[in-house]
């Protein structure tokens, strides 16, 4: 209860400040619409289905890009973590790509993948790939050598060591990678929807900006923030289910 109270203090304070600022018109309503106005617009967009349509399209894009990223980053992280040969083969290229922001690659992505869904998925893929790859790689690579030695003492084969020690030991790190990658996917969404999109929450925001409708821009921003937070919460619940052994205090 105390935590819930602490959690809502700052949002309530910000909302109050917003109310006051707009009530006394410290800024022009064209720059900062009031909370009431924003909520009314939100409700209208929700009732006529515009918001649901844009949100569901964006959500599908995020999940699609994230899923593609998982398909490539997880096995590649495991392989590079397990094998020095794989690591040496892939590392120079990956290290180069890691430092290139996905937004910088937009012109080339449009050229190669067109302006359809593929280019948007590619941007989300690029944004979420490295947090997932690096965390998987680190989780496998940094497996406690003492645990690996237990495998040696039990005469485990290389496959058994990977399957029964390295991979389970890397699960917490992989889950952190998945969580970060999901966050990065949401961030990359707006960038992805800048590419000649005609749908999606990013497009809705961009369109509203061009139509001088800051109230719709705010609705879009709130929707991204709230949806991202909800997905993250769901993810944390899943993490608790997958890692029941974490966070239990010893009695010694």
């Amino acid at each position: 209860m105390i935590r819930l109270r602490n959690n809502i203090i700052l949002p309530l304070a910000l909302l109050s400040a917003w109310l006051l600022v707009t009530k006394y018109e410290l800024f022009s309503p064209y720059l900062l619409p009031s909370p009431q106005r924003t909520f009314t617009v939100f409700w209208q967009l929700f009732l006529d289905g515009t918001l649901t349509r844009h949100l569901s399209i964006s959500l599908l894009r995020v999940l699609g890009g994230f899923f593609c990223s998982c398909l490539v980053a997880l096995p590649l992280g495991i392989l590079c973590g397990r094998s020095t040969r794989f690591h040496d083969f892939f590392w120079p290229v990956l290290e180069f790509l890691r430092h290139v922001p996905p937004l910088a690659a937009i012109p080339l992505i449009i050229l190669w993948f067109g302006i359809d869904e593929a280019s948007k998925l590619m941007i989300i893929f690029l944004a979420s790939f490295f947090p997932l790859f690096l965390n998987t790689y680190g989780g496998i690579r940094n497996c406690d050598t003492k645990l690996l030695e237990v495998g040696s003492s039990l005469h485990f084969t290389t496959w058994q060591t990977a399957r029964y020690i390295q991979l389970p030991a890397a699960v917490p790190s992989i889950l952190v990678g998945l969580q970060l990658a999901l966050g990065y996917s949401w961030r990359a969404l707006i960038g992805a929807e800048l590419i000649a999109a005609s749908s999606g929450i990013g497009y809705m925001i961009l369109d509203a900006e061009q139509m001088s409708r800051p109230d719709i821009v705010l609705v879009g921003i709130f929707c991204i923030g709230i949806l991202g937070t909800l997905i993250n919460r769901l993810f944390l619940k899943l993490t608790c289910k997958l890692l029941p052994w974490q966070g239990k205090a010893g009695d010694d």
Partner: protein
Amino acid sequence: MPIKIDALTKVYSTAETKVTALAPTTLSFADHSFTTIVGKSGCGKTTLLRLLAGLEEATNGTVSFSTKKPEIGFVFQEPRLMPWLTVAENIAFAIRKGDLSTEKLPQLLDILGLSAFARSYPSELSGGMAQRTALGRTLFQNPDIILMDEPFGALDYFTRKGLQETLLDLFRLERKTIIFVTHDVEEAILLGERVLIMQKGAIIGDIPVKLTYPRDPAASEVLTLRRQILEGLESKNVKVVDQS
């Protein structure tokens, strides 16, 4: 003789120096015997044990066994339990090799006093219980030889005493070949049928302990042996025992 080591040597080389962790050692361990190795920290006890287990490669010399490929179990100084597995799953960890059955698991949990904690995770265990689980993992493997590297070193007096009793019960019941490394002279005498004294990478004493179990730490024979071993450990003139 199930285990015979011949001129076994381990030298750690760095860019600047060479450190001899184990001087050329020739030794044998009888079948179904309980040998303790005692010595100060850094005297080469753990190195000898790790070489026997094949966890490290010898610089020179050989280790041979009477049977072609005996099953060797190793109990480490720390429990080294898999944090994502429960106590029961940790004990049955060797089953992942695919040639063991879980039938004896309840019996083992019972012997080790862990039945009530079978579903607990390592983070919920005390040090003693964690070490019992580690011992259980090695016993579940049903090895011919058990190598133990100061397994009770970090435990309090009472937990250690309890685990020593459990170990002796298991030894009398199953008569495995046990090689137990410790820096505690009293523990070496109370457990071993034979005590090897190590100093500076060499075996400097080999003392048979012909006392019946359980042994009283205050008995005069134990105290005499204790004095004898301590004198050996503190002597400056190291005379290497060669059993070749």
